[in-house]
């Protein structure tokens, strides 16, 4: 079942914005590099960058400043961001978005005077979100994928990474074990540098925004390889996931720009409840606040008949909605909702990992020869990500990673490939393919549902200690179920692919619950019913986490370093 080894200079896992920009910039800096991209989907078709709707936060206007964007990002993150990473994000966003146009050929929407248009998003003191209609990701990923074609960078399609490979000391990443879904074959690719940029996607929840193909692969692989992780309790729920009973579309988003443009939210009693939770900004509060409020309304028995709350954009005028949000209107119309003229039922939907692998501004992770960019990395967004900072992070850090890796591999001593621990890959293959030779066992599709229900009910939008401890018990038993899976069939085996997904979902579920139990307060995306207040005299720390010898996470809390902006400055900032 295993193919012979391949060796390259740079192995890139994933093919979203972070991965593609890393490939483009590494190639352009050092055209002699042998780069190989491995993606779970077809070329440029997987992942969440493509699904970006609203847009990309960036400072372009003379009236705006990096200072303001940074303050919005830190305020949005409730102060626990890594300030170096947040500062690089806002400063590098400006050249990154310009180069998306001048190098990759994107064309974002223009103002009437011909300059790039920037629209309003929640939680920001300036309208700085660059976009292409309301389906911005298609423009970015279509154009950057073409640039990969142009550079003839080889891509392994429908070939997902399943484990990172290590040397005998376990301190250096030597490449990755990949699985070719089409052929049902594993293969080993060794590399002088490995970039993990698979994207996250918290699909371990019943209701989730990313496509069901996502399963936090990169984050789980980093953890299993022993990389240092952070902020894993911080999982963003987007407030406006579409409710479509019985459909896989459920949880797909209605973009933030609707709230930015002035859409209202109503509970089942017809009350505009956000006026109660956030009197100043109402629906334009940050996602953590809006999601939490919706969930509390639902829990208080004030849900709409469909089970969530309702978004009303119709009061903005049908023409306005159809002109500015044609993609959203079409998405609603497919399920018999009229966004332009009526209310649409929505619910909080699991959306994004603020946590992930620990990196520096060069995208270096805690293991040698390992780089991480995009949603797989943690620290940029703190406790909550602003809408429009997600694709921003993927593009900015993909570009930085490409440049950084080219510099790294430019040194002859770094260009060599370390020897993988003998037998490591073979052991992994034996363990991973065990379900294929089992005659009877559990069903991966069923296991996935169980994981999703447990997370949704016990480690969801609003959490408490007892539920999370109970969830950890569930996870221990679910882990046994996942390990006992039985799958039949050979090539293009979708159920086996789901089995591989559940292995990763298990690890991120345990990480999230473990980390969440360390934070006895409510902050950003982490809401505790047993500790409903944010406690700035207690909570200004990050939980760092790594895999212990027993396979379970070990952790350490470290105080936030207010390197560029003081706590007082962050607290005082008003959007």
């Amino acid at each position, binding site marked *: 079942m295993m193919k012979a080894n391949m060796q390259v200079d740079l192995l890139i896992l994933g093919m979203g914005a972070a991965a593609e920009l890393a490939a483009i910039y590494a190639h352009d800096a050092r055209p002699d590099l042998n780069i190989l991209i491995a993606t779970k989907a077809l070329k440029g*078709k997987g992942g969440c960058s493509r699904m970006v709707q609203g847009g990309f936060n960036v400072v372009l206007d003379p009236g705006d400043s990096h200072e303001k964007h940074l303050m919005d990002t830190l305020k949005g993150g409730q102060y626990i961001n890594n300030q170096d990473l947040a500062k690089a994000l806002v400063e590098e966003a400006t050249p990154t978005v310009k180069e998306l146009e*001048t190098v990759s*050929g994107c064309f974002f929407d223009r103002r009437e005077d011909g300059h790039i248009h920037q629209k309003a998003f929640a939680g920001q003191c300036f309208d700085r979100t660059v976009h292409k209609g309301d389906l911005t990701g298609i423009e970015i990923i279509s*154009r950057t994928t073409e640039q990969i074609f142009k550079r003839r960078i080889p891509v392994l399609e429908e*070939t997902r990474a399943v484990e990172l490979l290590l040397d005998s000391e376990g301190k250096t990443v030597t490449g990755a074990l990949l699985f070719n879904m089409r052929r049902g074959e594993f293969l080993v690719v060794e590399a002088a540098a490995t970039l993990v940029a698979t994207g996250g996607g918290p699909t371990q929840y019943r209701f989730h925004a990313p496509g069901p193909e996502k399963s936090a692969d990169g984050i789980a692989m980093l953890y299993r390889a022993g990389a240092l992780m952070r902020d894993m309790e911080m999982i963003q729920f987007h407030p406006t996931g579409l409710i479509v009973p019985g459909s896989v579309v459920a949880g797909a988003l209605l973009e933030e720009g609707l709230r930015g443009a002035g859409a209202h939210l109503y509970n089942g009693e017809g009350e505009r409840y956000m006026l109660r939770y956030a009197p100043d900004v109402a629906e334009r509060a940050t996602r953590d606040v809006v999601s939490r409020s919706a969930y509390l309304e639902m829990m208080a028995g004030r849900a709409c008949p469909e089970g969530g709350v309702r978004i009303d954009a119709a009061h903005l005028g049908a023409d306005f909605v159809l002109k500015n949000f044609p993609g959203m209107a079409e998405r609603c119309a497919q399920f018999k909702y009229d966004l332009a003229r009526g209310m649409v039922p929505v619910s909080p939907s699991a959306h994004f990992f603020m946590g992930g692998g620990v990196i520096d501004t060069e995208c270096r992770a805690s293991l040698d020869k390992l780089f991480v960019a995009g949603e797989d990395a943690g620290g940029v967004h703190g406790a909550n990500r602003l809408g429009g900072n997600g694709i921003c992070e993927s593009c900015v850090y993909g570009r930085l990673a490409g440049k950084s890796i080219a510099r790294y591999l430019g040194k002859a001593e770094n260009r060599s490939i370390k020897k993988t621990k003998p037998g490591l890959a073979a052991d992994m293959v034996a363990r991973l393919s065990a379900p294929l030779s089992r005659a009877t066992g559990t069903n991966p599709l069923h296991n996935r549902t169980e994981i999703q229900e447990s997370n949704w009910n016990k480690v969801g939008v609003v959490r408490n200690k007892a539920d999370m401890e109970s969830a950890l018990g569930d996870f221990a038993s679910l882990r046994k179920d996942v390990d006992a899976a039985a799958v039949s069939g050979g090539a293009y085996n*979708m159920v086996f692919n789901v089995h591989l997904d559940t292995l990763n979902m298990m690890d991120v579920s345990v990480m999230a619950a473990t980390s969440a139990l360390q934070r006895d307060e409510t902050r950003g995306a982490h809401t505790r019913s047993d500790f409903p207040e944010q406690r700035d005299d207690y909570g200004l720390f990050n939980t760092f986490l790594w895999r212990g010898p027993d396979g379970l996470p070990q952790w350490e809390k470290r105080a936030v370093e207010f390197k560029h902006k003081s706590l007082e400055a962050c607290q005082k900032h008003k959007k």
Partner: protein
Amino acid sequence: MQNNHLRTVKIFRYDPEKGGEGHFQSYSLDIPQPEITTILDVLLRIQKEQDPSIAFRFACRVNMCGSCGMVINGREGLACKTNVAHLPSGQDITLRPLNHFPVIKDLVVDMSPFFAKYEDTLPFFEPIEQRSEPYVIKPDTKERVDIAMDTDCIACGCCVSSCTMVNNHEGYAGPAALTRAFTLLADKRDALFEPRLTRALDSCYNCRTEFNCTEVCPKSISGTRAIKYIQRLAVTHLKDIKPLPPHPAEEKAKNDPKPKAAEPDTPCSCKCHELPDPSRRAFLKSTTGMVGLGVAISLTGILGVSAVVPTLADQPAQWVPVGNAASYPVGSVNTTMITYKRKQAIHTETVNVPILIRRDSEQDFICFNSSCTHLGCAVSWDPTTKRFECACHGGAFDVDGNVIAGPPPRPLDRLPWKLENGIIMVEVV
């Protein structure tokens, strides 16, 4: 009790380990809410509830990635964008892989040929100059108005599957690649105008303007419009079109010692997915023939040639029996196949066509020609929605044959009828 929500779903199955031609497998699925159930939901439910072995491809599930293109009841579409209620309720749901692509398994095709052809037209931006600031371009400039939303193509392959030419002309890049070429040719920021135009034009002349690509595009992009735009450029840029040295990216590929990224996935050799779709493909071919004939007729008219040209209008009408009037209950709508011989020029052919019979009272019938007035596919009666529906492009007609949805330009044609000794007869040509 009969379950009204039960639908038959026929899925094309091909197992690469067994080889062969593939076959259709039928599943019966309860679909209580067809208005909000997508074909992707149908597949996921069958996989979960009945048969974990079926293979299909999807990623985003919200019309943004273009991974789930397939042929749904004879028409290309995205599984995630097609709801069950978009299909006539009386019909089975038939799902097969995109045409022209090698099948990997079941509904999963190898898209490599798509991207290989895509690259024919240099489908990537090459900046005309190095600069740090984006261009100032007003949104109402002609260039941007022309490009419109055509850069929103998600490369799903539906257009290529629907095209009857792309598989028969090796040099034809097809609608998706030419659409991208068009958006770049119109983009003043791009440096590859001349080589791209040369390559694209070479390709464009294979288009037969059938509009299939335009009909099926899930993003409402018209490949036909893009192709005609490129052809018009030939008029204004004739002097620019000359053999050119290859683009640096091509040169680079030749000399590049990069690792071969594994061997290509060589999927099945089965031809089953290439079998013509009985309803539409056959029809499209015949229409093309008729269009050609029409052109020939008008040309002869213009040239003033007085040779006798056989035309459909010259056909003698004839009365053909449909069936015993007693077998058509009052208040019903039925479909009956009729068979008759028709002489066309020097050729006599046997015609088999369905006729739609509506009986309003003892003495009152209405007989419709079942050909959709759009492109002639056979329409069928849907007793649930009480409409005549065309599976090809979504046309729908009310019980009187009036257009209520889709592209048909006029009501269904009515056929003269009479009763003779209890037998209903219709007049046809």
